[in-house]
């Protein structure tokens, strides 16, 4: 009821104001209006051209088909890793490798608060050496259909006193986007909450190659 009344009042006020604009103010002569419109539309066109073609800060959202492919590949990788099939970890996804020398049997993994999310996968090596190889893999990351890899900082891996420190920073992604769809008219506005394609796709994996004689103690991992 109150909204209906508000709309009615809005209409009445709107009629008065617009009527004033149209009938009383004579500054908007046809030629002046034409110039104004031309300038305004040119600004719109320039903004479009700049955003779409000239700006380096544009990311084209990938297609659903592409996201679906990525999702399937990542699911496959997850199940492979669960089965300890590390062949799925491709060289192209390797970001860095570090080697540390263990001094004691029990190696503790220490994480900062933000580091709780980085999953560790261990392959046990038949080796008499005490070298531990830490490899960080990152498959392309997509969230809400947006390629967020450029925003994600690689974790810092440090070794001290037979402890493996994983230091991560929280990633904050802020973007602007345009949708030529309409929620009001029920035209193609993506309802993304339930769609797995708009969930996080992609993996960050810390792969440890550890000789069998060592133990890895990871108390804080959330994965």
């Amino acid at each position, binding site marked *: 009821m109150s909204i209906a009344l508000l709309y009615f009042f809005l209409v009445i006020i709107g009629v008065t104001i617009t009527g004033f604009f149209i*009938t009383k103010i*004579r500054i*908007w*002569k*046809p030629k002046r209006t034409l110039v104004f419109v031309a300038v305004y539309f040119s600004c719109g066109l320039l903004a479009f051209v700049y955003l779409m073609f000239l700006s380096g800060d544009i990311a084209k959202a990938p297609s659903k088909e592409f996201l679906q492919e990525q999702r399937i590949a990542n699911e496959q990788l997850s199940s492979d890793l669960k089965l300890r099939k590390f062949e799925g970890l491709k060289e192209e996804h390797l970001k860095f490798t570090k080697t540390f020398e263990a001094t004691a049997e029990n190696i503790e993994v220490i994480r900062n608060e933000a580091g709780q999310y980085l999953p560790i996968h261990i392959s046990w090596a038949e080796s008499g050496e005490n070298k531990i190889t830490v490899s960080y893999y990152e498959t392309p990351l997509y969230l809400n259909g947006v390629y967020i890899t450029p925003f994600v900082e690689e974790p810092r891996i440090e070794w001290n006193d037979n402890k493996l420190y994983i230091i991560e920073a929280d990633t904050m992604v802020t973007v602007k986007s345009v949708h030529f769809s309409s929620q009001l008219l029920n035209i193609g506005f993506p309802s993304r909450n339930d769609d797995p394609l708009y969930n996080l796709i992609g993996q960050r994996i810390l792969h440890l190659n550890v000789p069998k004689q060592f133990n890895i103690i990871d108390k804080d991992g959330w994965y």
Partner: protein
Amino acid sequence: MITCKQLQKHYGKKEILTDVSFQIDEPKIIGLIGRNGVGKSTLLKIIAGHAKASKGYIEVVGQKPFQNLTVAANVIFIEDAMTFPAVLTLKEILESAKKFYAKFATDLAFKLLKFSNISEKNYHTQLSKGQKATFNLIYGIASRSAITLLDEPMNGMDEAIRNDMYRVILKDFIAYPRVIIISSHYLNEMEQLIEDILLLHKGKVALFAPVEEVQELAVKLVGQKGNVEPALDKYEVLATYENGPIFEAIVRKNDLPLPENVRMLSLSASDVCQVLTATEGGSIDDIYRKSEYGAEYL
């Protein structure tokens, strides 16, 4: 070009035109004369297709005029209330008129505007009453429509510009003959301009005749009351006035010899029209005499 037969127009119960019949077949300038409220503007609106006749038959350029595009394209109706878009300058108005009125004389309109000291950069809403009337008239004349209807076109104009505009109408009519109907209260000024008079009275056509015929219709007999009054039996008396010793009678003209000591004066078409459309119940003098001496005096 214009045919009206037993045309009637009423708004609700109020009758404006009761029985209007006339026919105009050739280009001429016609003065539409009548008292206030007699229906002159209504008749012009019906001819222009702006209003619909309640009854009767009307045909303009061979078609029924109401909401008829052919009629609209061939008839221009200029009146006081005519408005133009507020954002357009006079120049823009005149320039765009050519798109609608095929024969619109844009150059002439600009020249006349300049002659009238009205800047083409002005807006119609900014003009004074007289300037508005001048512009509207220029617009109407420059349109060179087959039928040009001018409703009180000189209202608000000063005498000088009125005279100029009468000449404009005449000159343009001579160059481009067409039907021009002018409804005006300045019949005296127009007598030299118009060919015919269409006199409306009580919702009917009281007279539709050439100006000369109207002028010949009645004469004024002037003299001492004792000399004039006895002679009136032989005439159709239209009106009498008494100014002290002088007695005046307006009578329908006939060929009988003039009585002795009575002078006969010719009348202008305007005077004749005034007499023909005079209100019943005497003149203003009668009203004052009534109030001064009482009804018994009469």
